[in-house]
């Protein structure tokens, strides 16, 4: 089996707190040794890391893929390349493909196609309800047996309290959690951006923060009632974080994540109807943005996910109210997350934890850490190297980045999946 030695690396492992210079050795698909004293065997291929940081490959637990169904917006290939260019080696995709992943055959199709491509690893979520329609439970048990990591209705909230109660209860039979898009659709209906002065000035319908807060409050009660494990995706409001913090303190079985836009941008990014800043949940005000950072610091928020949502030009080059929600994020996940480090909110390891071992642990994925005997999923980065995000250079088919034009720090030089280099920065 082929051996590779990554030498002259600064090894960073957020899970164990390791931060030292040394080497990492892999054999075939597996890490066999690493540390300051690891020695490259003679027959090994040598990769000189030149002092850059070798970290566990990023784990992104919220990605929308457009294959099958909307291949003009993105394919497993294009988004897979986008992922590896962003240093992501494992991604978990939402079931809102066409057809919906509410059936084992679709789940297996996606998993098989992704394996064949050999880019970032793809783990699908299963749908909570058939067709994501919020009415009848999908085959949670069978989907789980086929490899669904958890269950969610994707970009739609499970809004019926009775269905949510049953879903939490039933999924816990199989040890799985329900991931909720926390937004009360009866309150957010027709809204296109955060409710408030900016929306009023622009003449756009608002989505009140309470749409998120109310759903979080309700579901915490349902989680307590059923004992079912619950995870909230992309939390965007300070008050929802407060509610989650309090529930965690009294031992409720809940976790949550947020996405880069919610700690790096606020609603002013909408400017004069910039549809790339039309996201779901909507960008909030700066007070909420700072509360999200606070939540990341004190652990109220468990992880960061990119919330990658490819939309083609035709869905975005429209009047704001008609434009599609969402932004691509795989290629900017690392750099935007590193803003937390560069702005002194978190140290480097704690920052990287949020996009490696922390999200992996939420789903019980064996990924996101440097460990002997585990898959050689690695990313070589320079956390300080500056660059400017330019939508035109993104590898995904869709280029709808809310961060287009932003100067950032943190560059991916090489991405390794199962011991194979799947991305290498052209220099």
């Amino acid at each position: 089996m082929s051996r590779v030695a990554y030498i002259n690396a600064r090894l960073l492992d957020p899970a164990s707190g390791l931060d030292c210079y040394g080497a990492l050795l892999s054999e075939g698909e597996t890490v066999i040794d690493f540390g300051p004293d690891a020695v490259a065997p003679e027959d090994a291929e040598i990769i000189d890391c030149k002092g850059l940081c070798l970290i566990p490959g990023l784990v992104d637990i919220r990605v929308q893929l457009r294959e099958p169904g909307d291949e003009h917006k993105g394919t497993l290939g294009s988004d897979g390349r986008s992922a590896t260019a962003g240093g992501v080696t494992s991604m978990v995709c939402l079931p809102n493909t066409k057809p919906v992943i509410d059936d084992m055959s679709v789940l297996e199709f996606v998993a098989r196609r992704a394996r064949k491509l050999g880019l970032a690893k793809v783990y699908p979520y299963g749908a909570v309800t058939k067709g994501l329609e919020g009415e009848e439970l999908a085959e949670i048990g069978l989907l789980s047996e086929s490899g669904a990591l958890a269950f969610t209705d994707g970009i739609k909230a499970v809004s019926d309290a009775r269905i949510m109660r049953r879903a939490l209860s039933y999924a816990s039979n199989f040890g799985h959690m329900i991931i909720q898009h926390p937004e009360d659709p009866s309150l957010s209906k027709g809204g296109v951006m955060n409710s408030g002065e900016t929306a009023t000035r622009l003449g756009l319908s608002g989505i009140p923060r309470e749409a998120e807060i109310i759903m979080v409050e309700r579901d915490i009660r349902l989680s307590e009632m059923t004992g079912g494990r619950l995870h909230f995706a992309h939390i965007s409001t300070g008050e929802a974080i407060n509610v989650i913090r309090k529930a965690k303190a009294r031992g409720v079985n809940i976790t949550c994540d947020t996405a880069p836009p919610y700690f790096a941008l606020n609603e002013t990014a909408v400017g004069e109807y910039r549809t790339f800043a039309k996201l779901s949940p909507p960008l909030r005000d700066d007070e909420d943005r700072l509360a999200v950072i606070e939540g990341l610091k004190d652990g109220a928020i468990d992880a960061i996910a990119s919330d990658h949502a490819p939309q083609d030009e035709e869905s975005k080059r429209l009047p704001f109210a008609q434009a599609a929600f969402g932004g691509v994020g795989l290629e900017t996940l690392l750099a935007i997350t590193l803003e937390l480090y560069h702005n002194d909110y978190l140290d480097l390891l704690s920052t990287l934890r949020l996009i490696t071992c922390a999200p992996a642990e939420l789903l019980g994925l064996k990924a996101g850490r440097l460990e002997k005997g585990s898959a050689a999923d690695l990313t070589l980065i320079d956390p300080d190297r500056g660059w400017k995000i330019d939508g035109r250079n993104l590898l995904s088919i869709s280029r709808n980045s809310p961060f287009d034009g932003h100067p950032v720090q943190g560059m991916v030089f090489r991405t390794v999946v199962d011991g194979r280099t799947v991305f290498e920065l052209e220099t």
Partner: protein
Amino acid sequence: MSEIALDHIHFPHSHLLGIEGLSQDVISLLLDRAESFVEHNRQTDNKLSSLSGRTIINLFFEDSTRTRTSFELAGKQLGGNVINMSVATSSVKKGETLIDTAMTLNAMHPDVLVVRHNDSGAVQLLSEKVNCAVINAGDGRHEHPTQALLDALTIRRRKGRIAGLLVAICGDIAHSRVARSNIHLLNTMGAEVRLIAPKTLIPSGIEGMGVQVFNDMNEGLKDCDIVMMLRLQTERMRGGFFPSIREYFHFFGLDYDKLANAREDALIMHPGPMNRGVEIASEVADDIGRSAIREQVEMGVAVRMACLELLTLSAPKGDGS
């Protein structure tokens, strides 16, 4: 009347997309220019030729008779060629129609596009895709700049000034582009603006635009110089904002009883078309002594002439490059 000299006038914007961002000077310039057209338009032989050889396209994605006719007349008074296009809006592919139509019309090299669309921001989006001047004739609930200008001209002619006046804007603020444009204009010109409506029709955060909010007509109208009524836009209302028309009129319809709270010489305005007996009682609307509603329509033509002229003549004749 002879042609009015334009040599020394400079209009600093290439489009008129909204009142927000226009300076006091620019607003005054537009109003002064419009003022000079008012008397002229009242004469029988009143054709001017400053826009001769220029093409104006009225592109309306939303039904309108009044505004479109007003722009059409304004363009023709100045000797321009005016073409009306009403684009049927299929509910599904509106946006595609917008950009595609813009590109198509742009290829015909018009000098001005006058655009109305039912989505906020749509006119700005269109203006980014064409190389002629664009006038916003109303976009969603965002802005309707020429309406605010004609309201201002009406007020200025009747009251001699705008600064220092107390203006109440009443009714369906939430769905009104007229309200937003008027708030910007009146604030810029130094008036004091009050909004009066039930809480369900006051959009969140509007105080930040520099207004005082009232939920009671009698209280809000106290000592006002100008009472601007808005049309209740039932077509934009999804879900119940108030229980019934009867109840709405009882509390928020303008009748003589409520009007008694305003100053004795308070001027009543309405952008039209009116829903009589809904937001305004017929006898108040028709009160010649106090209602400026018909005059607003007349000022509309003059204001739109000023906008068309200043935008066209301050820009070099486009070659569509």
